[in-house]
């Protein structure tokens, strides 16, 4: 570190999934010189699945995460579909998997919005941390807190009905699924659907009203122009389970469109930096400097032409009208779009529960064997890429997992830098101001465990060092 500079470290970042830290380097005038989000976990899944049999992978890799394991379960199963030549699933198999996925998107999105983010939005970014937490929300806004819990429970029940367990089930197998949905399971889920729909609409309104009522603060907060990427359906509709890749620039022009996911390495590259375990993906044709992009709910709403469910589509139109149809770059609008997607998931669940294909008995198909496979899926946090090679003895030889949070790596760093520059430069640093940094990171709903393929929970430690590297202040919160 050069002379006359201070370094502030936020470690770990709280109310996100996993473990990371932020370091901010200040000069003598307390101006921000550099801000970085470091991902300090290392897990090694890509290495230790080598040698395991391919049919074990969907169940093994989902252990990356306890929040959206279904994403990894389904992405790996989709990959292994191609290994066994069973990618053209039976209607029952595809719809069971979709139902499982929409259940997961719902539970993950509401967990993030109601439990992880709502304290910031309801109490303010620099409110007393003693009330700026989920217990504070339960005390002051009990109805909202209960809705969050019940909506998450509903999503989890769907996962249980489709995968056998609420967390880390086994529903998807190479070439299909291992169960259909019984009439009893269907009827039990239908019972609460109307309530979910009502709460889903309500959640969009909470997120929308928050954004509009605080627009002057929200709009520039950690905001910058970026490219966006997601899967889209053949007709341009949002599709969270399957599709082809589309990337758009900040103006909404297509950088690439309808790219077969098997060819992703022709379009995307990953850069390694020595200060983070998380890689930095970028669009090959533009290069690392300007080719990075965002993924997740904001990006999916920006890239898709429409949503194929009426209530969510109405909300999407209203959202896009804010920017006259151009990509919306407001980082905190991730929350609004996340709730639009939660509503979309509920509508899709409704559609599927009324589809008798879910009671079909044709569950698995196989065909011509392949050795290499790529699968993508829109996980709650964004585009998830699984790439494997399987040898003739059925063992995994190579695995590359580019998870949603990795796709957002550069973007999260950009947001951290923007917030640090806008809010921390030249002022005395307080806990509330440091929470601003975390608010920007939380907007992406990052899953840092997944992104590095640690476990555990650690207290937040903020350390302030002077230009000689001497610790001059330290704040700790559990």
């Amino acid at each position, binding site marked *: 570190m050069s002379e006359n500079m201070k370094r502030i470290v936020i470690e770990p970042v709280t109310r996100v999934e996993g473990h990371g830290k932020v370091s901010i380097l200040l000069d003598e005038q307390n101006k921000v010189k550099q801000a970085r989000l470091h991902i300090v976990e290392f897990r090694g899944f890509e290495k230790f699945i080598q040698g395991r049999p391919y049919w074990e992978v969907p169940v093994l890799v989902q252990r990356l995460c306890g929040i959206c394991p279904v994403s990894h379960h389904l992405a790996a199963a989709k990959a292994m579909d191609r290994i066994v030549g069973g990618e053209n699933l039976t209607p029952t198999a595809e719809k069971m998997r979709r139902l499982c996925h929409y259940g997961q998107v719902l539970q993950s999105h509401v967990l993030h919005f109601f439990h992880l983010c709502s304290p910031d939005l309801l109490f303010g970014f620099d409110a007393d941390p003693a009330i700026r937490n989920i217990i504070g929300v339960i005390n002051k806004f009990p109805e909202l807190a209960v809705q969050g819990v019940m909506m998450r429970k509903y999503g989890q029940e769907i996962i249980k009905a489709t995968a056998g367990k609420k967390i880390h089930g086994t529903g998807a197998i190479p070439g299909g699924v291992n169960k259909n949905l019984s009439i009893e399971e269907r009827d039990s889920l239908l019972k609460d659907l109307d309530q979910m729909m009502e709460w889903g609409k309500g959640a969009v309104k909470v997120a929308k009203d928050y954004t509009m009522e605080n627009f002057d603060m929200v709009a520039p907060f950690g905001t910058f122009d970026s490219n966006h990427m997601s899967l889209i359906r053949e007709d341009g509709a949002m599709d969270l389970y399957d599709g082809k890749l589309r990337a758009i620039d900040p103006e909404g022009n297509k950088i690439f469109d309808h790219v077969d996911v098997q060819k992703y390495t022709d379009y995307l590259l990953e850069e390694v930096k020595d200060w983070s375990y998380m890689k930095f993906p970028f669009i090959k044709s533009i290069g690392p400097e300007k080719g990075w992009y965002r993924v997740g709910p904001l990006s999916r709403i920006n890239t898709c032409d429409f949503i194929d469910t009426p209530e969510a589509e109405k909300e999407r139109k209203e959202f896009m009208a804010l920017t006259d149809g151009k990509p919306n770059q407001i980082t905190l609008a991730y929350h609004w779009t996340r709730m639009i997607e939660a509503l979309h998931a509920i509508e899709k669940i409704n559609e599927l529960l009324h589809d008798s294909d879910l009671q079909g008995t044709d569950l698995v198909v196989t065909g011509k064997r392949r050795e290499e496979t790529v699968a993508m899926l829109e996980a709650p946090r964004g585009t998830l890429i699984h790439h494997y090679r399987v040898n003739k003895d*059925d063992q995994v030889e190579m695995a590359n997992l580019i998870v949603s949070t990795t796709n957002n790596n550069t973007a999260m760093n950009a947001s951290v830098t923007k917030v640090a520059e806008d809010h921390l430069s030249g002022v005395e640093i307080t806990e509330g101001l440091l929470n601003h940094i975390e608010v920007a990171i939380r907007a992406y709903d990052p899953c840092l465990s997944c992104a590095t393929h640690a476990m555990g929970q650690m207290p937040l430690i903020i350390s302030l060092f002077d230009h000689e590297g001497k610790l001059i202040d330290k704040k700790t919160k559990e």
Partner: protein
Amino acid sequence: MSEQIITITIDGQEVKGTPGQTIMEVADSAGVYIPRLCFLKGLTPHGSCRVCVVNVNGRPQTSCTQPIANGMVVENDTEEIKQLRKDIIDMLFVEGNHYCQFCEKSGNCELQAVAYRLGITAPKYPYQFPNKEIDATHPDIFLDLNRCILCARCIQTSRDVDGKTVFEFVNRGPEKKISVNADAKLSDTNLDVTDKVVDSCPVGSILKKRVGFAVPIGKRIYDKEAIGSEIEKG
């Protein structure tokens, strides 16, 4: 002449059998479950796993090998015996690499089921994390020694039922392991997927390829009822 009847007590309950029957056999007939791992009906019992140990007239004996005798007093369901069994199961878990989380045998695994039945939630001994071999060369069968508990059921089944001697023990003590036909790969043996040995493994060491996780959670053998319930129901 009518056959001689032998009467013993198991945990105070009178149980009758005939000469030559083992404690386990008469317990099974009487609906009394004695936990076990290396025992498999149809094979010659050899008492190697020690999980079926009971107190016989105050002395620990393996119930799968001990013939009954008139007036035997057998203790099966006592805290002391239960603790002995738990310790054995604990050691089996830490000596291998048993990751039930992603093992396709989970729900159908006898080691897991006995552990649950005995109330083991986590091993108390430190994990050894040994390096174990995997043999995936056979077109239809996957051999994963990470999960092997050295019960010898595969050795006996292959030899005595299939007539093939595909598996055998090599080395001694902590180095003891299952080996395939004098260290050849599984694909070099005459093992066939229809052989009885494939179904003999109590854990997830010998597996049919490409069928893992095909049975949904809820429909696996031990999802609804604890291991031994079938014996207790009679």
